[in-house]
């Protein structure tokens, strides 16, 4: 497994949190995904071996939980809430705006490689709907204008990194 040394250290530490190794499946998958960007088949096998499980035990977890992914995504992950309170305040429009800004559809890498846009279910911030998460950061009251601002920021950062 090709991971940062600190990821390996955190893996060893987190296993000690539980009386059974199997409980560490989700934490390990989170750590690997944060480090590698996604969970490859070999990563699943590695986790199984590490926790003394069958590969199927890891595979069934990865395929159930929406947050785990088996393929790389764009550099930034845009998650737009789809559920009722956000929809009532224009969440679907917000999502359209992001798709337009990055010239892409849902659940794919945008042509510039910059983002993957996803619809997700209630993010528990319904009072400031519509809400959007960009990677780990929550953005509130994201109407179309604010969506364009966020998109512009992402693009500026991308330009900066190239130049």
């Amino acid at each position: 497994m090709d991971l940062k040394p600190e990821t390996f250290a955190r893996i060893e530490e987190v296993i000690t949190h539980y009386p059974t190794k199997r409980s560490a499946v989700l934490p390990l998958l989170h750590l690997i995904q944060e480090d590698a960007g996604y969970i490859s088949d070999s990563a699943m096998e590695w986790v199984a071996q590490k926790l003394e499980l069958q590969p199927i035990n890891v595979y069934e977890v990865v395929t159930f939980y929406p947050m785990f992914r088996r393929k790389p995504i764009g550099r930034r992950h845009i998650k737009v809430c789809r559920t009722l309170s956000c929809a009532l305040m224009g969440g679907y429009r917000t999502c359209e705006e992001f798709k337009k800004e990055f010239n892409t559809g849902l659940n794919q890498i945008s042509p510039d490689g910059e983002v993957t846009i996803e619809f997700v279910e209630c993010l528990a911030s319904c009072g400031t709907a519509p809400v959007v998460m960009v990677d780990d950061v929550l953005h509130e009251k994201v109407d179309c204008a604010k969506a364009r601002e966020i998109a512009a920021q992402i693009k500026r950062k991308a330009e900066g990194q190239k130049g």
Partner: protein
Amino acid sequence: MPAPEQRRIIFKHIDEPGYTPDIDCYVRNGGYEVLKKSVQRKPEEIVDEVKKSGLRGRGGAGFPCGVKWSLLDRKSGKPIYLVVNADESEPGTFKDRYIIHQDPHQLIEGIMITCFANNVKQAYIYIRGEFPEGARILERAIAEARARNFAGPNILGTGYSCEIYVHRGAGAYICGEETGLIESLEGKRPYPRIKPPYFPAVLGLYMCPTIVNNVETLCHVKYIADVGGQAFSQIGTPNNTGTRIFCVSGHVKRPGYYEFETGKITLGQLLNEVCGGPLPGRKFKAVIPGGSSAKVLKFGERFKGKRKAGAEMVDYDWALEDVPMDFDSLAMIGSMGGSGGVIVMDDSVNMVDALANINAFYAHESCGQCTPCREGSLWMKKISNRMVHGDARTEDGALLKSVADQIAGRTICAFGEACSWPTQSFIQKFGDEFKAYPDAKKQPKRDGTLELV
């Protein structure tokens, strides 16, 4: 009648300028004094205080917290676990988020008092995957509490030891269901377990006796350990004690979180005064009072019957606006207080569109173990989605209802009810709108009509 003042107990410091989530700020504000006091008492005394307080769980079901604790199998010789439900996944609910992000030590103190009272040596906070910052804040808070000997080995020199770890979910709603949560914590798919025999109090995490409590519930426990069960029971109304945090979202002028004594505020006061009423030019049409699984209520409905007031039975005749926001009153009128998530819809909303949105949620989140739930939630989504995006038929409402009617009561967990109640109640109360939908679709769309699914 004007609305009462908010009574902020749990949200006392939320949004307070200068209040920070670190332990110094918490201690400056009197933090961990209740824990210090509590570890000098007998654990049973604290359990008794919680029983006396009448505290009901804030996660959804409203089960009395003290009763839950007394069901723990204390004789098995196995370790007892506390699992804190920080999954906050019921649509419309957003209260635990603010406790976790802004006042994490309040929760940690509540956890430690609960653990001490129930002889728990290991607690896990199960936090939803979409709160990455919340997880980091909690981990930092636990480390701070440990460094000051409020958690970890030999707490405050008492010889009592207890660890807390944070465990992150990964985006599945069903992890909020307590036995699904336990399976998830064991590293598996979050398939809920069947009760009996798998009551967490007896056969919970690692088949050991386990308490599962909501974040807000445990903050109330801290307050109860401070003021006493008797004093707490005087807040709110009988059988609906303490305060409730209402999370209001959707079509009101001032959405947000508001903490009131339970049962002291009516739905009308909450929405019209506290939240500023409907948006300009709009009228309220419908409200879901306790998270998206609660049955919808219709403005213009009246509710009549007899209810208990103290020892007596009295008649009530309420407009929807008159209904007190407590567990029992909302149950009496056929819905529930649930998680405190109040979702408001105004007259711009077509109820078929709204239901289609909700049905898409449940179809996405069914764990798939039980055929009625897996297939039923999917068909309800397909039918309502077809109504919106394809052909709609006048008989679709009846068809939807027939699917919903075959789910509830035939499943392993309460998700079965949660996914059928929206459809059943929408059709019951807005049936005409479902019948008229094929015609309504032929009309040109008003400008500004929002897509909901």
